[in-house]
């Protein structure tokens, strides 16, 4: 593998071993320019995802690994997370951690003390990048907002708030425990203590009209700082909505055409507000993107910690897909009794890595580096597959960059099917 001639992306990491020598926070330089070839993951960097699997209530649309439990021994969870950090530390010595993401479930239900312990353990295990991004997902209820300052204090730098809707009726329909007013208050409190705050909205809701979404999004854009996640409601199997939908219930969902119109409107309004989409559902001012999520979309390495957390780790010349038991109890038991929450790793063959890279990178406005894809796939992407898509205005190719146009991005699954054959 040859080092690419291009400028490296935003936050590349150096070789793990070399980075271990450099002081915490210092971007390693040892390998850069040397004759050690860069590994593929270094195109995108390294981050840590930690999964907190509990929520105060289960939302009917949600298929995340989240559970409601009234007996959570947070000390026990802290010990288990720390044990897993230790285990991963020995697997990946010296990796420079660029980002940490505390996701869920509802991580804003974690005691600040637990967050502090976990982040402390991460810092003690790996060198940290200069300006690490540490995100926590939060629900905007008043109880949780009360903990924001404490989170900031122990090192959380970015908050992602699940506002979901700016309309109380819809919040109720979505099974949310907070009102719009509460969400606004939580948001203001978050802005006061975090440098970076983003929030999530779900659109294409039941009975939602284009005009309503226009008004709501306009309001949201007025609130937004520099980042917004705007998801179309997805009816997932195995959720309460999924079951209702299968029974023919859950009326008033937009058809594909209205859904497409909403997506197009979203692009227009966000573009005009300077928050263009950098990914299918994510909008930011340039530079304000979620660095952690970019690692996924650019196929970097990440360690997955906690129940049901997936990871991708390049170790010893192999890229491994890691996973853990899904059920919180099963995961705890595995960590406590076997000393490891890891299920058997699955080595990813190069062509699967190539597929993953293509499929994730085309979600991004920056698109896919075809030279990198070709290195992984062992052969360049067939031009005959690209040409008809380009002709239809769904993708654009400039030199080695293949991007979806906004029209292409809404039908990305179709684009991928066409490209992957």
């Amino acid at each position, binding site marked *: 593998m040859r080092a690419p001639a291009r400028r490296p992306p935003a936050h590349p990491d150096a070789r793990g071993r070399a980075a271990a020598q450099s002081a915490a926070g210092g971007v390693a330089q040892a390998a850069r320019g040397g004759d050690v070839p860069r590994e593929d993951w270094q195109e995108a960097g390294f981050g840590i995802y930690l999964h907190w699997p509990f929520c105060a209530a289960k939302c009917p649309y949600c298929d995340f690994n989240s559970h409601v439990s009234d007996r959570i021994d947070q000390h026990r969870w802290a010990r288990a997370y720390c044990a897993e950090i230790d285990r991963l530390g020995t697997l990946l010595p010296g990796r420079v951690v660029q980002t940490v993401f505390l996701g869920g479930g509802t991580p804003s239900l974690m005691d600040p003390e637990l967050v502090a312990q976990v982040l402390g353990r991460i810092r003690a295990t790996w060198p940290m990048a200069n300006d690490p991004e540490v995100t926590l997902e939060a629900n905007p209820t008043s109880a949780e907002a009360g903990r924001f300052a404490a989170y900031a204090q122990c090192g959380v730098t970015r908050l992602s708030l699940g506002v979901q809707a700016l309309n109380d009726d819809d919040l109720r329909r979505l099974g949310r425990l907070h009102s719009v007013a509460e969400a606004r208050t939580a948001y203001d409190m978050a802005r006061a203590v975090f440098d970076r705050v983003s929030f999530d909205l779900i659109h294409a809701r039941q009975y939602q009209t284009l005009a309503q979404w226009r008004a709501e999004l306009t309001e949201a854009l007025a609130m937004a700082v520099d980042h917004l996640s705007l998801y179309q*409601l997805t009816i997932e199997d195995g959720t309460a909505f999924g079951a209702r939908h299968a029974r023919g219930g859950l009326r008033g969902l937009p058809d*594909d055409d209205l859904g497409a119109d909403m997506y197009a409107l979203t692009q227009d309004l966000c573009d005009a507000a300077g928050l263009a989409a950098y990914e299918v559902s994510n909008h930011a001012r340039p530079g304000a993107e979620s660095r952690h999520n970019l690692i996924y979309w650019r196929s970097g390495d990440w360690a997955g910690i906690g129940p049901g957390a997936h*990871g991708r780790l390049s170790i010893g010349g192999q890229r491994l897909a890691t996973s853990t038991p899904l059920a919180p109890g099963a995961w705890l038991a595995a960590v406590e009794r076997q000393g490891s929450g890891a299920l058997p790793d699955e080595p990813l063959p190069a062509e699967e890595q190539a*597929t993953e890279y293509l499929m994730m990178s085309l979600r991004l406005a920056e698109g896919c580096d075809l030279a990198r894809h070709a290195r992984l796939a062992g052969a360049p992407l067939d031009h005959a597959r690209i040409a008809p898509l380009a002709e*239809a205005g*769904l993708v654009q190719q400039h030199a080695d960059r293949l991007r979806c146009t906004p029209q292409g991005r*809404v*039908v990305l699954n179709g684009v991928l099917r066409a490209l992957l054959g």
Partner: protein
Amino acid sequence: MTQLDRIRNFSIVAHIDHGKSTLADRLIQLTGTVAERDMKDQLLDAMDIERERGITIKANTVRIEYPAKDGHTYILNLIDTPGHVDFAYEVSRSMRAVEGSLLVVDASQGVEAQTLANVYTAIDANHEIVPVLNKIDLPAAEPDRVREQIEDVIGIDASEAVEISAKSGLGIPEVLEAIVTRLPAPKGDRDAPLKAMLVDSWYDPYLGVVVLIRVMDGVIRKGDKIKMMQTGATHGVDKLAVLKPAMVDTPELGPGEIGIFTGSIKQVRDTKVGDTITHEKKGCTEPLPGFKPSIPVVFCGLFPVDSNDFEGLRGAIDKLALNDASFTYEMESSAALGFGFRCGFLGLLHLEVIRDRLEREYDIDLITTAPSVVYHVHMRDGSMQELHNPADLPDLTHVDHIEEPRIKATILVPDEYLGDVLKLCQDRRGIQAELTYAGSRAMVVYDLPLNEVVFDFYDRLKSVTKGYASFDYEITGYREDRLVKMQILVNDEPVDALSMMVHRDRAEGRGRAMCEKLKELIPRHMFKIPIQAAIGGKVIARETLAAMRKDVTAKCYGGDVTRKKKLLEKQKAGKKKMRQFGKVEIPQQAFISALKMDG
């Protein structure tokens, strides 16, 4: 050797699902033919597809021994037959091998179309008929009413019909007694030259072709040299056995007996059902009358979805054909579908069964083209061509006229649905021939074009009558009509697999329905797709499938990569079930579903 008057041979016939196979179970069980631990429901329906669908496809013979009340032990050869109209041929040839029939009638349903059809066949075969009223355990059973119906509609004496529950075993001893006392013993001359009827044959992986015979005169022994009179082939008898239902070797079979022999015959096709078997030397001179051969009435193309599977398909079809002489096949090539086979079937169920077996037993995904009947194309030069495939229709300037096969359809239906049935038949270009009543049921006889019936007539009939109508048909002949070839164009490309012959007056309606259906069945693509029906160059119906506007996964983070990748891989595998026509991919299912439609 068994004395002739201690033998009774009979077939069990009935409308579909009236309980023939279950009655056979009880007869086998009560006589201890099969050990109790080896019993299972519908024991004789051994094929996977029979067990899965709960129907009999192939007739089965069993020899049982029954110690009757008169103190003698009788040999009973029973033949369980299929009820579905597609397999009516199995019934008629089975009847030729025996002297009597048990006519099973479901006492909760009464006389149905195949009940009638079977009675007529039995009468043709000079059978003694013993009516059996089954399912009297059901609360809805009305044996008295059904008995009356049998007398009214069929015109046979039902006063001594045996009332049974094949399920519970009630009345089975009475059935056995009735067989012995009411059915005639076979006739035959043991000292005459061998004369045996070739009733059926099938392929056994260990034994090769197994031939089922009924001995009329003379005796066949293991080691004999025999000759098939029609084909002229000669064979040594390697194995001679009776079926209980497992093969039990026997040194000889005499007059009135039914059994099998093997003789290193390679293909089922090398045997001709209805043929007369005699000894090579000193054989009989007068052959049996033989059977009318079964002829395929529905044709369609079968193509492998993956063109690499063609050789596999050829092998699979050859193997299936070893065992089923009633379907025909020849290689065919299509512009869009590549290489495949044009196959002929006894009906739509037969088609489905063969297709299912090919797909499952041989693991080949298939595309089935529009089923077609056989048209007679009369050319201007006076010659006639049989058209099995609309794609082969000759240049119309040379065609004088086209004839299509017609059928006589008999439908039995409760009064309240009569109107719907008449409308359905009328819509299908039917001509009413008869309308009679039997109690609260009407019996309608219609002259219908076969091509209006093969696709979905039976489904429609079931749906408009909530399942209360029954239907039977036989082909009566050919008649000229205004028939045209309708083509379907998807994205301006003709899809030859969907071409069909239709009546000119029905073309618009069918074309429109077809385009609408395809619009539902073809997934949206990245571009819009016109779907048209055309006759010659003239478009008669048109729909447009809009381009896909939204197909993207809203959330896709680190934890979703694996799942998402698997989904893409699954879709890629699903693509194998698609066929490429120009730029358009048409799911295999579309070919099947497009043909099942209303109107």
